[in-house]
C-alpha cells in the first residue's frame, strides 16, 4: 500500500508527484503486480488532494503501461519497474548508504550529495572532489 504525500510548495505539479511516488514504490518493491492502488476517494480523503489530480496521475501511469483500470473494481499494478533482483537492490542500497555516511563525514551536505549524484548520472564529473 502506498501513502501519498504532496509537497504543495513544489514546482512539480501534484499529479506528477503522485506518479513519481508510485514509480518509486514499484522500483523499491513496495508495490507489486496485482496490487491495487488506493481508490481515488481514499487518496482524496487521506492526502487532501483533488480527485482530478489523482485521476490524472492514475491515467498517466496507465498510459505508461504500469497500471490498469479494471471496470468497477479499481486500479491495479500491471508491471513492476525494478530492473534488479531484490537482493542486488539491497546490496546496492547498503553500499550507497555507506557511501553517504562517508560523504557526510567528509563534510558534504545533502545538497552537495544531491548535486554530485546528478552530475555523475548525467555523465559529468565523476571524481567528486569539491
Amino acid at each position: 500500500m502506498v501513502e501519498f504525500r504532496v509537497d504543495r510548495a513544489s514546482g512539480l505539479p501534484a499529479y506528477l508527484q503522485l506518479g513519481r511516488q508510485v514509480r518509486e514504490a514499484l522500483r523499491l518493491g513496495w508495490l507489486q503486480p496485482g496490487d491495487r492502488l488506493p481508490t481515488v476517494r481514499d487518496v482524496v480523503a487521506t492526502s487532501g488532494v483533488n480527485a482530478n489530480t489523482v485521476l490524472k496521475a492514475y491515467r498517466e501511469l496507465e498510459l505508461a503501461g504500469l497500471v490498469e483500470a479494471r471496470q468497477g473494481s479499481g486500479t491495479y499494478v500491471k508491471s513492476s519497474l525494478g530492473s534488479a533482483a531484490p537482493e542486488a537492490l539491497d546490496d546496492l542500497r547498503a553500499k550507497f548508504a555507506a557511501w553517504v555516511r562517508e560523504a557526510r563525514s567528509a563534510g558534504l551536505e545533502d545538497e552537495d550529495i544531491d548535486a554530485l549524484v546528478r552530475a555523475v548520472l548525467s555523465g559529468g564529473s565523476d571524481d567528486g572532489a569539491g
Partner: protein
Amino acid sequence: MTVRVAGVSKRVLRNCTFELPGGGVTALVGANGAGKTTLLNVLAGHLTADSGHVAVAGRVAFVAQDKPMYKGFTPLDVLRFGGHMNKVWDEYKAHSWLHRYKVPLKRRCGELSAGQRAHVAFALALGSRPDVLLLDEPLSELDPLARRRVVRDLLAEVADTGMTLLYSTHVVAELGGVADRLLLLSNGKLIVDGDTDELLGQHVEITGPAADQPPVRGDVVLARHYDRQSTFLVRCQGEAVAEEPWSARPVTLEELVVAHLEAVA
C-alpha cells in the same frame, strides 16, 4: 458549464469573463481589494452586475468571510433554521460536520470561537447540498491543522457529490494539488485563468548572462537585470529548453502568482 461569467463589471470588477465546468475546485486569488469578494457576491446573487452576464447552474451556497450569524442562535438553531429555509436539506451531513469538528451544539454562536463559527457556517452551507459552493476566505480563521482537515473534507465532498467549489484564499502555498484551476484577480481584472498543472508546466525561471530577452519563446512575466546576470520568469509556449550558459528551473504556484501580481503592480 456550471458557472458562466461574461463581461461582468461591478464596483472594482472590470469586464470579467470565465467559465467553470462542474465538479472542479477553483481558487480565486488576488491582493486585498482586487475584487474577489465582489465577484463571489455577484455569483451568489447578492449583488447585481452593472454590466455583463452571470449564469450559475443549480443550487448555490455562499459562505461570507465574516461568517454572519444570529448571535443568539445555537448551532442547533442554525441547522434547524437551515432545514426550514432550504427546499433540499441534508440534516445528517450538516450534523456530522459539527460533530467531526467538535462544535458545542447548544452554546450560543456569539460565544463560539471564530473557528467554531466557521464550522457552523460550513455545516449550514453543506447541509443545503449545493451544486456550487462559494467560500470567501474559508480558511482564514483556522489553524494549520484544521485548515488541512477542512480542505481534505471539502475535497472529499466535491469527489462524492460532484459539486463545484470556488473559494478565495491568500494561502497560495497550500494550493498545490488542491485547486485544479486558478483565477488571479488584480484591480478587478482577471489576469490569469488556467489549469494549475498547465500553469506550472508553462512557467519557468531562466537565469543567465545579462540579456534583453530570454533564450526561449514565450511571454516574459517578470525580468530582473543585474550587472552580469539576467533572470526571466517566462510563460512559455511549448517546452522551455535552456541551453548553456542559461539555466531553467520550475517555479512554484506562489512564485507564479507573485510574479504576475508584481508585473501589473
